């Protein structure tokens, strides 16, 4: 079993400096890794990123993050990511990272993701250039997430987690107005997760959403936006599957 702490949408700025640090300092007692599901800043400035960096620096557990739409607002996401990386946080966009937790290899694949909507109610790659680019952006994020998860599988990870800002499923958006679902996530992310396989998917973005959901392929999804979880972070105890003996094809169907 590994212990995964996660939170998104902490929206930090100079005015909230230090607010999460006391809770984060308890992480080594209750978690093996902290995942940050984007919207770490209010406007995506490097000044705000430095506040986040100080908040999560030297916590005693590895910190893995994706950026959110707020972290792009000042149009310098690479600089925001660099500030966080300098503090020891691994910032993922279309790639994965492998963490060692004892003997367990934990793979985290991350992308901000993007919108577009869900099956039967989604935007299509058609019409105006801007509309096509909107959908293509979402598709690029999802494709990169799938490749990253597949690479983690190839690297022998015992547990794989998909970390996004936008939601892969509509269930965790329950509570948000239906009309804005296409701006909150995309089924392309869920399809990527189900195609490559994962043990858990974690996202943020939907402040008025719901914590629990699942992809149609059976992967558990958790919305950890701080307004949803109502705490500094959530902790999930994730079982580690025993490796199958050579030649075995898995449990027989019921």
């Amino acid at each position, binding site marked *: 079993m590994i*212990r995964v702490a996660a939170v998104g*949408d*902490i*929206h*930090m*700025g100079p*005015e*909230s400096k230090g*607010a*999460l640090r*006391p*809770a984060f300092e*308890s992480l080594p007692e*209750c978690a093996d890794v902290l995942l940050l599901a984007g919207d770490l800043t*209010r*406007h995506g400035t490097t000044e705000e990123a430095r506040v986040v960096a100080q908040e999560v620096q030297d916590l005693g557990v590895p910190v893995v993050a994706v950026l959110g739409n*707020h972290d792009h*607002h000042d149009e310098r996401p690479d600089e925001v990511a660099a500030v966080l990386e300098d503090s020891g946080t691994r910032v993922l966009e279309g790639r994965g990272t492998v963490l060692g937790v004892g003997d367990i290899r934990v793979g985290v694949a991350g992308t901000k993701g993007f919108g577009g909507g869900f099956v039967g109610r989604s935007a299509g790659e058609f019409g105006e250039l801007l509309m096509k680019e909107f959908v293509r952006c979402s598709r690029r994020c999802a494709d990169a997430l799938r490749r990253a998860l597949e690479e983690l599988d190839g690297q022998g990870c015992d547990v794989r987690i998909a970390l996004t800002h936008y939601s892969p499923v509509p269930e965790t958006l329950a509570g948000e107005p239906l009309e804005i679902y296409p701006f909150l996530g995309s089924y392309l992310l869920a399809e990527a997760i189900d195609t490559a396989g994962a043990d*858990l998917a974690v996202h943020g973005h939907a*402040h*008025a959403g719901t914590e629990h959901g699942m992809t149609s392929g059976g992967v*558990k999804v958790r919305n950890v936006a*701080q*307004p949803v*979880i*109502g*705490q*500094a*972070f*959530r*902790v*999930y*105890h*994730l*079982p580690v599957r025993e490796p199958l003996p050579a030649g075995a094809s898995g449990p027989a169907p019921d």
Partner: protein
Amino acid sequence: MSNHGAGQAHAGAPAAGSAGSAGNAENTEYRVAHLIEHLAAGHLGELGVRVEVRGESVQLTGTVASAQCREEILGMVREELAGVPVHSDILVAENSAPGHAEELS
């Protein structure tokens, strides 16, 4: 606040004849729409607060990162919706550590 004028322009639009009350209701709607745009695109960068017209008044709901953030939002709301009764249920995010974990199977 550079966006203030845009929000107030609609407040000053005269309503005529029997369309007066409908015009006023529409007016509040547009003022709220502009407020939502300004909360998001202005210096506050706030997309997590819901602003909804409730009869003659406006209700604010959502959770923000700090008390200062909430005060800034309420300041913008008071300025842009001057004359409209506003009920605020904006909460500040809870920063305590969780007491237990969820066991995933």
